[in-house]
Each structure stands twice: as structure tokens, then as C-alpha cells.
């Protein structure tokens, strides 16, 4: 019977997960090893909606890893690999605010695979876009004065000459 860890979101919701799943998060793995998990681990920076998604990712990847080590894996991309990739592609089809919340949570909880997956997704949305378009898509406020903006463009103009 695997040990259960309790994770508590910033809005007070408790999530009970297998230890193996919790260990996918580097910060929680450290807490487990430092033995400070008795009353559950409070995660002040992660809301319940976000935490649910992080746990979902970790569960799926722990299951996939178990299947892979049990079975005979072909290095050129077995069906399991493709299935996992398809699952990952669907997993990130969420609205933008949630996507960014997951990035922040993956960063805070130290889940490298999830961080890379979500950052890659955002990167794909950014590719080839102008700064104005990027600001619009991601609701970012420009914090440059016109002089600063001119200086920044000047700095990197050599790349486009």
C-alpha cells in the first residue's frame, strides 16, 4: 500500500496523492525527504484548479514511466511514447490564464517536464509574432518609455540587417 501525501492548495482544498506522484514535484520530494509532511503540505502559491492540473500531469507520467519500465521499449518511439505525446498535447489545451498559472506552479513546485511542456506551448504561440502581437495575445503591458523602446530596438537591429 503506497503512502499518501496530502497537498493543500492556497484556497484551502486538500488533495490526497500517492507518494510516487507527489515526488514528481522537486520541492515536495525535498519536503518528503526532510520529513515535514505529517499534516499535509501547504502550497501557498498554487490554487486548487492549478494544483488539480499539476497532479493530473504527474499521475499520468508516473503511470507511463511504470508501463515503460515494465514493458519492452523501442527507442524509436513506441506506441506508448506517441500516446503520451498526444496526451500531453491535449493536456495543454486550456485557456491562457490557466496555462500561465500552470507554468508558475511547475516552476514553484519544480516539475521540469511540465515546465518545459507548458513553456514550449507558449513559445509556439509566440513564434514569428511582432512585439505588439505578443503583448496583445498575452495581455502584457508595455513598460518602456518611447526612448527606451527605441533604444531596445536599436540594440538588436543588427540581427535583422
Amino acid at each position, binding site marked *: 500500500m503506497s503512502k499518501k501525501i496530502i497537498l493543500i492548495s492556497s484556497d484551502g482544498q486538500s488533495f490526497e496523492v500517492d507518494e510516487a506522484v507527489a515526488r514528481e514535484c522537486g520541492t515536495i520530494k525535498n519536503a518528503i525527504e526532510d520529513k515535514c509532511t505529517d499534516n499535509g503540505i501547504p502550497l501557498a502559491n498554487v490554487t486548487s484548479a492549478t494544483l488539480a492540473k499539476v497532479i493530473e500531469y504527474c499521475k499520468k507520467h508516473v503511470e507511463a514511466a511504470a508501463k515503460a519500465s515494465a514493458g519492452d521499449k523501442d527507442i524509436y518511439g513506441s506506441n506508448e511514447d506517441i500516446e503520451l505525446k498526444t496526451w500531453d498535447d491535449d493536456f495543454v489545451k486550456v485557456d491562457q490564464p490557466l496555462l500561465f498559472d500552470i507554468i508558475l506552479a511547475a516552476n514553484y513546485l519544480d516539475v521540469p517536464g511540465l515546465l518545459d511542456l507548458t513553456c514550449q506551448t507558449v513559445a509556439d504561440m509566440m513564434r514569428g509574432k511582432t512585439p505588439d502581437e505578443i503583448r496583445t495575445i498575452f495581455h502584457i503591458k508595455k513598460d518602456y518609455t518611447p526612448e527606451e523602446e527605441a533604444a531596445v530596438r536599436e540594440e538588436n537591429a543588427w*540581427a535583422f540587417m
Partner: protein
Amino acid sequence: MVPEACVANIISFTSPADIFSSSAVSSVFRLAGDSDFVWEKFLPSEYRSLISRSTDRHQSFSSKKEIYKCLCSSLLIDNARKLFKINKLSGKISYILSARDISIPSSDQASYWSWSKVSNSRFSESAELITTDRLEISGKIQTGVLSPNTRYGAYLIIKVTKRAYGLDLVPAETWVNTRNGHIVRNTAYLCCLDEKKQQMKRLLYGNREERMAMTVEVVGGGDGKRREPKSRDDGWMEIELGEFETREGEDHEVNMSLSEVKGYQLKGGIVIDGIEVRPISLS
């Protein structure tokens, strides 16, 4: 809202072009776009060795971005026998192997080849063919020094002098072969064919020359068109030798060759600057 470290992680999945342009989004993007974390990903793994092998760079760098910029303006390495370059927008690596760095049989014999500094050459010497009946040129490169997961083309960089002769009789054979045995063969003329001259030859010699040209078999890319040297931006011409692909984690030798030995006629007046290996842009 999103911390700099996360922005850096995000933009590291884009391209140098996107990183340069996104620095104008906001100050967090600018800071992330200047960070060593991001530029480390676009530097070739052996960049320290490349810089130490370079003949002209002895400056110190204050950031990985500076190193990247340095590698974008070509670097002469290995006693100026090779030119290394990164495309500033895509981050892809290309090389030009000088004529001294490739294999040209008998190139050290003054009756066959002459070496001198040619205008527009990036190297101190290029090789001009005086005369030979057998023209064989080949270069090699390790895929491990190139960008992974990229389709590359190999091109022989040449000039044809006014005193050239014997280059338009028979096309040369070109091929690229990699360690796993894959060979891409093709043919190409060593100079651009003068249509009027070709017509005169047909009048005078009947189809004899065309029959000779057909002794050079065309395998694969036979679309019936004559392949001829193409102009480059740097005042030289190039003949495509073939293509190959690089894969992450693999490192094997690629041989790129041209040979014109079936013509039997004497030829001369072609100048070789080297072989360029560059990514093929997908349009």
C-alpha cells in the same frame, strides 16, 4: 506577472530571431532575452574550443549573448583552413572548408594546379586548375559539428576564368555519402553552357558531344534539365554536390565529392574556393 526565469524558459524554446524581436515587448522580456540561460541553448556545445581555434578572435566576452554575436560573424578556424558561421536568426551552423582543407589529387603539382589569393575569396589561397584530364575533388565533415535535426546541402564554390576550356563537354558526377551508406548521386556541368556555342558544336560535330555527355549516367534526380553552376551573393558560383540530414546524438562522417573523369578531354580554368556546408532553407 510572470517571473523572468519563466519568460527565459519560454523564449528559449523559440529562435534567436524571436528572442531579438521580443526584447521590445517589455523589460522582463528584455532581461530574459539577455540572460546566459537562454543563449547557452543556442551556442554550439564546443564553442569554447571553436573560439580558441580561431585565428582572429582574442577578446573576452561578458555574456553568452556576446559569444553568440561573435560566432555569427564568421570565424576562421584551424589555421584559417575552415570558416565557421552561425546564422544569427536561426542559430544554425554552417561551415566552409577551404580548398586547402579538401582533397584535390595532384593539387601540389604546379603543372596541374596553381594556388593564389583570389579576389572575393574568404581564404588566403584558392586553387586554379591549369590542366588535367581527371578532375576529382572531395571534402569531409563530421555531422556532430553541425546543428542537429537539420537538412544540409553541400556546395562546391567555384569561379570559371575566361581562359577556361574543356569544362562544357561532359557533366561532372556529384555525390554525398554518409556513414550509414546512404548515397545521393547527381550530375552537374562545371560551367554554364553557352547555348549558341552548343548549337555550333551540334552543327560541326553532329551529336557526338551529346552522346559523350550521356556516358555520364544520371541516377535519381533526372528531370531532364541540365544542372549548371548557380550564382552566389559573394561573386562566386556554386555547384550542388548533394544533401544530407543530421540527427541529434549522432556523429558520423559525410563525404562530399565531385568528379569529372569520363570526359577524357583536358580541362582547365576552374578555380576552387572550397566546399560550403549550409542548412537548406525550407521555403
